């Protein structure tokens, strides 16, 4: 088993090492381009490439581009300087990073939320796909961790954002799914149960920076038990998400 895992890791690493694609060559249009030793503002500038010279872009990590100059020197250049370089066609290198204007018009969103489900801790991972600016389908899986029981739920639902232009956007949600609750072994006379569940919720998401958003929500769940009465649980959670 371990040997298999190690083998898999080795193949993965080799695949990554050989997967680097050849990037475009760009011409420096600013007075100069600063090459740093690492992808960060704290790394020292060790070389400058002058206007009119050409560098090849190797890769990009966050806001930093690794380039190679004509003499083979490798260094890291900030996004702000790369945006002022020219492609062979004479146009500026387009760096279309997500920004405030894209928030609300985005299609995909993935996030992690932590909170409380009916008195127990809950860890939720969710993904959403937007059909338009207002309406999105959302899939969530959660791990419920209480003192006397633990469980999972998986739900599918729709969210509605009334004003997608705002920086802080309230939203409404409804959906359905299944929930499984497993009482802890030390309790006697209870057994694991799986029930259907439905929810309605209200929440807010806010744009922070780049593709990064924070989100908080409150949901009311109705668990359709096979007992005489349905169970109702309130859940609140807060977390962060990225949009694509």
């Amino acid at each position, binding site marked *: 088993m371990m040997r298999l895992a190690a083998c898999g890791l080795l193949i993965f690493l080799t695949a990554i090492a050989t997967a680097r694609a050849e990037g475009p060559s760009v011409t420096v249009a600013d007075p100069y381009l600063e090459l740093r030793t690492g992808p960060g503002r704290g*790394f020292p500038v060790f070389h400058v490439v002058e206007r009119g010279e050409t560098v090849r872009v190797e890769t990009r990590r966050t806001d930093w581009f690794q380039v190679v100059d004509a003499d083979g020197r490798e260094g890291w250049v900030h996004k702000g300087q790369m945006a002022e370089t020219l492609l062979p066609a004479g146009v500026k290198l387009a760096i279309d990073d997500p920004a405030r204007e894209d928030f609300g018009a985005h299609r995909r969103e993935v996030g992690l939320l932590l909170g409380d489900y009916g008195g127990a801790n809950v860890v939720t991972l969710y993904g959403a796909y937007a059909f338009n600016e207002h309406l999105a389908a959302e899939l969530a899986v959660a791990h419920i961790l209480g003192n006397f029981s633990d469980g999972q739920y998986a739900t599918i639902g729709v969210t509605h954002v009334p004003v997608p232009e705002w920086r802080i956007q309230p939203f409404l949600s409804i959906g359905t799914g299944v929930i499984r609750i497993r009482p802890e072994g030390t309790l006697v006379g209870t057994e694991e149960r799986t029930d259907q569940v439905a929810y309605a919720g209200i929440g807010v998401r806010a744009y922070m920076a780049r593709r990064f958003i924070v989100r908080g929500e409150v949901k009311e769940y109705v668990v359709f038990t096979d007992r005489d009465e349905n169970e109702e649980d309130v859940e609140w959670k807060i977390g962060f998400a990225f949009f694509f």
Partner: protein
Amino acid sequence: MENRIRILLLSAVLLASGCSYMPWRNDTPEAEPPPPPEAGEAPVVIDPAVERREIETAKIDTENWEAGAYVGSLSVEDFEVNVVYGARIAYHLSEDYFAEAIAGTSDAGLSSFERLSGGAPLLTDSERQFTYYSLGFGWNALPGEIFLGGKRAYNSAVYLTLGAGATRFAGADRFTITAGAGARVLIRDWLAVHLDMRDYIMDVDVLGRNKSTHNYEATLGLTAFF
């Protein structure tokens, strides 16, 4: 007689001046108009002998993801120190922050109580397995370089992490808060060695009452950027 000569000369002058205004005295003849295109034939378009340049779209490879595996030792509170294996994946949001997910597993040993009393074990073998996951955030607090000798320099960072997740141990899934610190050294542009210290904080009720436990882990890992 004299009158007849005068009329002859006048008429000759009139004739000559009149002739100079006649249309057939044109020195620059007009070009012939092109024949009208025949029905069904496409009109001839000027074909400039200039080659079109292929405009290269900037396809730049991004390396914001990092994935790999680690091995180390985990101290399960009251249940000895044991080997732990795990996997880690991280997404770098900026040069300062990253999101990360980790998952690992270890087998806890015997508690001192079990060893000394010599009685029945508190946990079965499957309950003794300690499996966790954690999702959270990291901050590259101290980016820098490590110098080996006079000629080698490796980029590095010391980072702090905070996460939440769950641990399956002693027959239950337990909510777990993870706090850690680590160091990352890039031995290649795409390959990093990690030295991580993490604390898994959770409530465990195996030994009588519910108590908060700290489970410390020290690991050495290898990750690749892609």
